[in-house]
């Protein structure tokens, strides 16, 4: 009985204390707040953590460049737990504080919920509207059939990435095997890769395709046996995390001489888990990598990367989010306020440049940002290696934003005011 009473007090206190003591810093100064929703706890916290670290760096830069309307930007993080319901609750909290911007990167399921939730919220609360800044949910449907006036995507969608990857394939390549994870992102990639292979490289034969259950396969040997039997020369995959790492490991150990064209090998942790076995074999499609500035001989870009590397042990790659902040700042300046509708109009058609001088264009008809993409190879002799592995990314093919203006099926409903 003693213990029982004792623990009730303890636990009541735990709850109240957590709430009382750890209140977020109340910003005394007047800032432009951006609500940010991503998984920050649980098994997928890695993704939110990486983006948050990027944003810490990018917000500092954009504020040093003057912010917008003479004010600084401030990020207000929320934990989505990768659950749509939690993201929608965070949306409520953001609109309660009259924050006109909600930003979200990880998870197309959460993105779909937010597009819908923001759209309904704005229709029902015309004097407290909010813009959804999508910084990394990539499924191409989100700016095609599901497009919405209040949703802006600041990252290349799966279609653009597939096109870049197909363009980077060497002329000698004749047969490929497609393996993707069985969820929205993987399924879309599978579809789009096939589409652009047929369009741009009809000479390449797809000798096999496979959808694997997300994160459940512990032994890739049976898949590798099939790949081997098919005689493919390369594998094209959108797998990430253990699904990529294990698949490559099994395949390399089995002695298969393949190239691995991936979509997400560059994200945090990718280089560490692949390591030496990826040398020369591994390719990725990325919005940026640390060796881009030196390849293009851009001093401004070098400074951008060097400062990041001084305090981080993984690669800077979310250059698109720098463009996001720059576009947002310039749109707010143009609109003269942070009113969601005015800023949304000002965002349309915005063009900004990254430190290397490449264009980023926000397309008006579907609110999809066009950005430069790099197909890169994992090699030894580069200026900056990734995650202290001794290997780093070297550009194979660079594609400019204007080159990736793919058609859209978006029929956007635009609010009258």
């Amino acid at each position: 009985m003693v213990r029982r009473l004792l623990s009730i007090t303890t636990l009541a206190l735990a709850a109240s204390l957590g709430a009382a003591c750890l209140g977020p810093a109340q910003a005394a100064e007047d800032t432009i707040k951006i609500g940010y929703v991503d998984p920050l706890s649980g098994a997928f916290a890695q993704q939110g953590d990486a983006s948050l670290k990027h944003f810490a760096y990018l917000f500092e830069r954009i504020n040093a460049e003057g912010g917008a309307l003479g004010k600084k930007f401030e990020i207000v993080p929320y934990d989505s737990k990768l659950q749509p319901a939690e993201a929608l609750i965070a949306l409520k909290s953001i609109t309660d504080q009259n924050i006109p911007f909600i930003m979200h990167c990880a998870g197309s399921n959460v993105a779909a919920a937010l597009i819908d939730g923001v759209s309904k919220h704005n229709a029902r609360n015309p004097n407290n509207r909010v813009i959804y800044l999508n910084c990394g949910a990539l499924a191409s449907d989100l700016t095609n059939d599901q497009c919405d006036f209040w949703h802006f995507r600041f990252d290349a969608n799966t279609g653009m990435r597939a096109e870049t990857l197909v363009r980077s394939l060497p002329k000698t390549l004749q047969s490929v095997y497609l393996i993707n994870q069985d969820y929205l992102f993987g399924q879309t990639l599978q579809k789009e890769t096939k589409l652009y292979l047929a369009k741009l490289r009809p000479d390449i034969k797809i000798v096999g395709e496979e959808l694997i259950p997300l994160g459940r396969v512990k032994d890739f040997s049976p898949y590798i046996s099939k790949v081997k039997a098919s005689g493919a020369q390369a594998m094209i995959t959108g797998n990430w995390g253990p699904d990529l790492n294990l698949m490559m490991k099994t395949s390399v150990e089995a002695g298969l001489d393949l190239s691995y064209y991936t979509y997400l090998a560059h994200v945090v942790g990718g280089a560490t888990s692949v390591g030496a076995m990826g040398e020369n074999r591994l390719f990725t499609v990325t919005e940026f990598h640390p060796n881009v500035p030196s390849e293009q001989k851009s001093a401004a870009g070098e400074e951008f990367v060097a400062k990041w590397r001084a305090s981080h042990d993984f690669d800077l790659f979310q250059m698109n989010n720098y463009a996001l902040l720059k576009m947002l700042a310039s749109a707010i300046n143009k609109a003269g306020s942070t009113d969601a509708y005015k800023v949304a109009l000002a965002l349309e058609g915005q063009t900004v440049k990254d430190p290397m001088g490449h264009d980023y264009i926000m397309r008006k008809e579907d609110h999809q940002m066009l950005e430069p993409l790099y197909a890169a190879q994992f090699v030894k002799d580069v200026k900056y290696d990734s995650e202290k592995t001794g290997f780093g990314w070297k550009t194979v093919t660079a594609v400019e934003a204007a080159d990736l203006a793919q058609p859209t099926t978006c029929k956007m409903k635009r609010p009258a005011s």
Partner: protein
Amino acid sequence: MSDAARSIPMATPRRAGSAMTWLWVLGLVLAIALPWCFYDFAKARHSGFMISMFSQAGMMIIFALSYNMLMGQAGLLSFCHAVFFGFGGYVVIHALTGASNGSFPIPMELMPLAGGLAGLILAIIFGYMATKQRATAFAMITLGIGELMATAALMFQHFFGGEGGITSDRMIDRSLFGLSYAQSIEVYYLIVFWTMVSVIGMYFLTQTPLGRMANACRDNFERAQFVGYDPKIVRFIQFALSGLFAGMGGALYAIAYEIVTFDSMAGPLSANALLMAYIGGTTVFGGPILGAVLITVLQSGVSLLSNSWLVYVGVLFITMVTFVPEGLAGIIMAHGPIRKAGKLGKLAVPYVRILVPGFILVLGFVALVELVSFQTIGAAQGKKLVLFGNPIDIASNIPWAVAIGGLIIGGIWLRFESIVFGRVWDEITAELKRAEART
């Protein structure tokens, strides 16, 4: 696992004494008044976050109570309860779409019934399989069902919409009272109404012969068999009915969020049901209500403040399991006889005395967790650690020393005070027993 169930006695639901009735009425009044406590008069609007959180709490109350129909009342450990919740949600999302295009013309206020019916039908199908077994075999079958259904929801696009889920619009323009349900406050009151209906429904179920037989089968299924009841049938009916209520909860989820994804069917939500029911207390009917509210607040509220909230949930849970297996409600019930004897006042001083070191202990623990997680995770995310409104410099030794000191001193002091407290408590209960023996 049978011993487990046996060792948790189910407090007989009390005769609806006037105190109890008043407690329920108070709860209802509180639920109705609560949104207005957070009303923003300056901007003349409700706090959307608070209303969302209370709405979430409402559906979780139904969900946790329906889970307790299995765990607390029938002694069945299920790992697939979210399947019925999610399925009810999916059906209602489709029903909402149907209602707005006219193919399914039922008013908004009755939508939860559609969800409940869906949950019931699915629970009948799965219950037919699962309830043939009991104890661990039952638990494992439900684990399998849960995994199968969650993956099926990801795989089959037509009904479940895959990863993106299914969305709909709740403004279907079919209401018994002419409401549009544009504002979440209207939805909140709909949720309050249906939560009340379900709670009352589930309470009266515990009073029926079925509820009593479920208890009997939990406590000693062999004896129940001898009396002439088939425990399988009892388990089956209890399972099906709990599916009905879970489906109603899911329906409210669909109405509140207007989107249902596979997450609402998946394992973590089923696990949440278990957490809520257990922390609240499975032995008292109202226990899971407390658990549902507490967990919702932790999940939506504390997670805003600290990304380590899962650690706090974990520690809270372990503390509860170790020291308070009766749950929050069990503790409150233990004070019943003391209150009746009018001796509650004697406990005031000892309570304050254990509260102080308890406070220090928790403070030390929270500070330590936050310091450690700040050092490895938070710092690079560009955050500042703020305690009591003061930024803390984690490079210096002082906060660490304070945290660890608080943990140790609080721990030792609490141990000492708890002995004192125990003495007082034992005295009072012994006194009560003597008084009882005399009468």
